[in-house]
């Protein structure tokens, strides 16, 4: 009987070790309302002049993501609006996979708030747009690893405008690289 309890304990400990080692090795947080496909077709209505920068920053990563411009009802959009709101940018998942309510999204809308971003540098605005694309590529906010991440709320937006090693690992996890 004692041997049985011992065996169960060992299995539980091994399972827990397995689970926690996965969590600590991954310094990103998987976000399940990102896009189904790592190739995002986006209608750039207004990206405050930083679409090309954000696109290049993501294309320069060792991931399978691609950001291409297109139009139509099935594509994602980027808009810039003068909003009486407290945020710089916002990611909204649209057309979810399962019963429209959950799962990855087929497309998304990224909104930039010109009221708060108009006086900011291009690097700052790019940091916001690259962050929103991070959500599109299944990264959640605040991985709290202590490492640099484009997904951190407290990042220096005048400096950090590229996906970091942890962010790249998160995207590769999401798209099975």
């Amino acid at each position, binding site marked *: *009987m004692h*041997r*049985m309890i011992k*065996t*169960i304990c060992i*299995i*539980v400990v091994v*399972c827990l070790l397995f*689970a926690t080692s996965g969590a600590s090795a991954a310094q990103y947080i998987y*976000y*399940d*309302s990102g896009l189904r496909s790592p190739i995002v077709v986006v209608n750039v209505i207004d990206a405050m002049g930083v679409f090309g920068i954000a696109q290049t920053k993501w294309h320069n990563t060792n991931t399978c993501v691609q950001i291409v411009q297109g139009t139509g009802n099935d594509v994602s959009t980027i*808009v810039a*609006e*003068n*909003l*009486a*709101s*407290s*945020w*710089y*940018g*916002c*990611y*909204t*998942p649209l057309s*979810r996979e*399962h019963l429209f*309510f*959950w*799962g990855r999204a087929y497309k998304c809308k990224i909104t930039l708030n*010109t009221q*708060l971003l108009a006086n900011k540098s291009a690097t700052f605005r790019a940091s*916001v747009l690259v*962050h*929103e694309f991070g*959500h599109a590529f299944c990264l*959640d*906010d605040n991985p*709290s690893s202590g490492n640099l991440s484009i997904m951190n*709320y*407290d*990042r220096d937006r005048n400096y950090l405008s590229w996906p970091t090693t942890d962010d790249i690992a998160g995207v590769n996890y999401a798209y099975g690289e």
Partner: protein
Amino acid sequence: MKKFFMTILRSVASVGTVFLMLSLAACGQFAGEQSMYHADYPYFSSIDELTAEADLIIIGETVSANNVEKLKTSSDSDDALPYTMCEVRISQVIKGTAEVGEIITVKQFGDFKKMPDSALKELDGYIKKDSTNLMFLRVFDGVPSEPLSPYQGVVSIENGKLVSKSKYSLFGFENNESVEDAVDSIGAVIEIRSKGD
């Protein structure tokens, strides 16, 4: 016979444990997240920055909460976005133009129930009725004011002490300062800034 029975029992227990672990992992994977807005809010590294950015800093009691409305907050488009609104009776004005006793409407992004903002949802940050809060607000023309950020713009007051669930909050996270101490430090920052002007 007993040994055989124990082996069977042990195998069942092992398989059961592994199955339980895998099921828990699978639940987490497939349960899915409800649709939420993911907004990127300004970060403030000091009380000085937070105070400078706020148009209005108040302490107030929430007299009504969770009123969801779609507001047209953009001057460029007709799109309306959902906000969760509350009414706050001001008990102290630390910065900005407002009267003690005045009731103001404060908005927070997202529909707290159907389509919340992810940061507000995670922090349980939608302002609750009867709560008393220290608020750092951005004031808009013709649209209700809004906290500067879910992480740093609202700090609740419980038994005269500041309490925040946000690790980014400059008040009430690790130190549960008294309201008086917080008001003094904000006041000191305002005074230094006014001398500099």
